[in-house]
């Protein structure tokens, strides 16, 4: 398969692109959930995300992408201590994945050929320090969802089966996409996503023409198209790296903390995760825009995507939770 459609060549869908960039700047925000109609470029955007992520340093050959040789798990049986740059892992979790494939299991090849017990790491190991992408996340089997929730909570994958007793770090950012018409997401899983965006098809003809034009160019004139847009992708990647550095210097004024808390209180979002995410997202947003101080403007810009999936559902509100957040933001922040 050819390279994925470049991120910067996606027309419109600014909120979705912004959310992806924010989570690339600060992975601790906790991932993105993209919900929307068919044919709006959800999957395209997620697959394009990989090209935006700066490379990481990891021990060569380590199955869980450890940063330092001391962190390599024993079962890996790794001799080398050299580290090397590798692209940030973006691991696809297919809907049909079995529990064994997700958590890892006994290496059957070694078991049969040599009669020895060895652990074969699964998708969670590969996704450590990277991203785990689930397309059609609302159709995922319940027992896999439970498993993911557990691991996402603890940051550690524990495998206890057939004499194997293995634990390894599994810290990853969840990225999911889905179509709400096909099923709802359990609130527990919903809460694990830092940001949530809703996408819709563009309504004006010009934008739509531009989309088709670029898609056509991507398919029929791939080389020239990639050359043109990969440069733009690289520019965004540089800005992300710069923003990561700027993030450390960015100050959070007391007033912003107060704003964030008031906002979450007014919305009645459950738990404190909303506040934390909102703050982190606002900081990443400020860093990306090269601003030196956090202001209300930053909070306002990221409030809908950080909070819309944390509200209790009000059956009477047909406008959707995004509108509710915007309304409350206007009330609280003026």
């Amino acid at each position, binding site marked *: *398969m050819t390279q994925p459609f470049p991120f910067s060549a996606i027309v419109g869908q600014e909120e979705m692109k912004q959310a992806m960039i924010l989570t690339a700047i600060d992975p601790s925000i906790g991932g993105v959930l993209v919900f929307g*109609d*068919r*044919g*709006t*470029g959800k*999957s395209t955007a997620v697959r394009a995300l990989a090209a935006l992520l700066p490379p990481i340093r990891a021990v060569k050959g380590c199955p869980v992408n450890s940063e330092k040789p001391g962190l390599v798990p024993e079962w890996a049986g790794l001799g080398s201590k050299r580290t090397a740059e590798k692209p940030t892992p973006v691991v696809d979790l*297919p*809907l*049909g994945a*079995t*529990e064994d494939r997700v958590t890892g299991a*006994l290496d*059957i*090849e070694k*078991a*049969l*050929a040599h*009669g*020895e*017990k060895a652990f074969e790491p699964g998708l969670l190991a590969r996704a450590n320090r990277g991203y785990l992408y689930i*397309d*059609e996340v609302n*159709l995922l*089997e*319940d*027992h896999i969802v439970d498993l993911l929730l557990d691991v996402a909570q603890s940051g550690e994958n524990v495998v206890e*089966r*057939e004499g194997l007793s293995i634990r390894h770090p599994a810290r990853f950012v969840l990225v999911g996409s889905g*179509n709400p*018409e*096909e*099923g*709802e997401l*359990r609130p527990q899983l919903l809460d694990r996503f830092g940001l949530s965006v809703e996408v*819709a*098809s*563009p309504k*004006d*003809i*010009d934008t*739509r*023409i531009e*989309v*088709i*034009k670029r*898609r*056509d160019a991507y*398919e*029929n*004139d791939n080389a020239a198209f990639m050359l043109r847009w990969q440069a733009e992708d690289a520019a965004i990647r540089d800005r992300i790296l710069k923003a990561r550095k700027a993030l450390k210097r960015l100050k959070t004024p007391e007033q912003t903390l107060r704003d964030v808390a008031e906002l979450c209180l007014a919305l009645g979002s459950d738990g404190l995760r909303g506040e934390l995410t909102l703050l982190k997202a606002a900081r990443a947003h400020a860093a990306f825009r090269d601003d030196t101080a956090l202001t209300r403007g930053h909070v306002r810009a990221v409030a809908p995507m950080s909070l819309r999936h944390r509200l209790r*559902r009000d*059956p*009477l509100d*047909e406008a959707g939770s995004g509108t509710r957040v915007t309304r409350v933001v206007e009330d609280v922040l003026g």
Partner: protein
Amino acid sequence: MSSDSPWDQAILALRLLAIDPALGGITLRARAGPVRDGFLGSLAVLDCNLVKLHPAMTDDVLHGGLDLSATLAAGRVVQKQGLLQGPRPILLTMAERTPPGFAARLAAHLDAGGGPLIALDEGAAPDETLPPALQERLAFEVDLTGISRASAIAPKGKTPRPYPVLHTPAQLAQIVTTAAQCGIDSLRAPAFALAAAKAHAVLHGRTALSDADITAACTLTLAHRATQIPEAEPPAPVPETEPDAGEKTQNTDFDIPNEILLDAIRAMLPDDLLDRVAALRARTGKGNGTGAARKGNRRGRPLPSRAGRKGDDARIDLVATLRAAAPWQTIRRHDTGREGLHIRASDIRAKRFEERSDRLLIFAVDASGSAALARLAEAKGAVELLLAQAYARRDHVALISFRGTEAEVLLPPTRSLVQTKRRLASLPGGGGTPLAAGLQSALEQALQAQRRGLTPTICILTDGRANIARDGSANRVLAADDAQHMARTIRANGVDALVIDTGNRPAEALKSLSQTLKAPYLPLPRADANRLSAAVSDALGD
């Protein structure tokens, strides 16, 4: 060039697909018969290596996995190839029975460059068709149901090799505008139309798109996706296309008069367009319409088995258990030095079944002063009788009462008859009628139940004099408004309901409420509990 008969359309779609497999595939709506067989015979124009799938296939068949017998025989791991490998044409039979999960897997395969996919859809009703996620990714849909006898000749001629075809910005604009005029939101549709037009040009040996290409492609790819009958005037002002470098003039007029193109599409619109749109709307309200699936381990349709403990009351899947134990035999023999079969607790696989979801009856009982005066006792009796029936049918029951200023969930969904009766008997009466609050509470229960895989039905027993609004204020007008609004929301969420008027005289307000709910309305003046429960059973269609 485009011929109007569905058969010619089908063959044309097939030839375009052979030129450009990226078009995704064809949905073929037809019953089994000579016509369909004729079409299947024509599939030879695609690469011959056809893979046949049906919706009940499991993941290891699709994606491959360990080939157990070969592995044991060879003493080393032998992987079985999955059927979904690389770009091979796929034939999906009984496509209308595809569950969403299976569709998602196929869709992911198509996205990754697999396919093309020929989906054989034998659905009878308009809403009995393959899942939208998959349908969306197939460029063409052809309906061969009307045809009695096909001039079933295999398409002649070799498939020309694809080459780049040029298009003008105006042609592109026209395709996009046309799609918008047909009310198609998704952007895959115009992308398919453009690709199909180019394939059509290749088929006729042209190097630039012609009018005929666009007309043929639009009728093939857009007509079945239309959600409205296309109107000539575009919804937005005539699009301005950016003049590309080297483009001579900006052309805001389309090459073909737009009217002609739209006429061509209109001719191809499915006859049941309105039904389909309605079915689609209904579907968005009611989930996917297949009924909520519930996983248990005692009965129903078998599902792939899962690891389970022996102590569970689950049934053991012997074959899967042996399969799980097989690769370990070498090690275990080695460890214990004992010959024979070694099976340990962790190998045990439990059978799982999927059955149709249970029903949940949510009783929202008006316990206000007016109702208490009238016939709270009778209502209680009726509910008790209904409970007994629900118990016999293994339905779940939830009980909500509303009085004063708010609604209270007396009993969350349960099967315990005794508990329900006890709560019901001790139900006090008196106070205002917060009908909207009661409805809201019922809806919340219903939505929760839906998420857990139950099929909820709300049964409202009231005398209909709503006098407390949702905010708790005693305002008759506002209260009635709130109740209506709540009813609309219940309807929009696709929850079934039933309104029982327990007042002495039938209340007009309740009648209109039940109309909003699209629910049966049962006025029961001077009715006893027996008649009430009989009426409810009737209305629920037992």
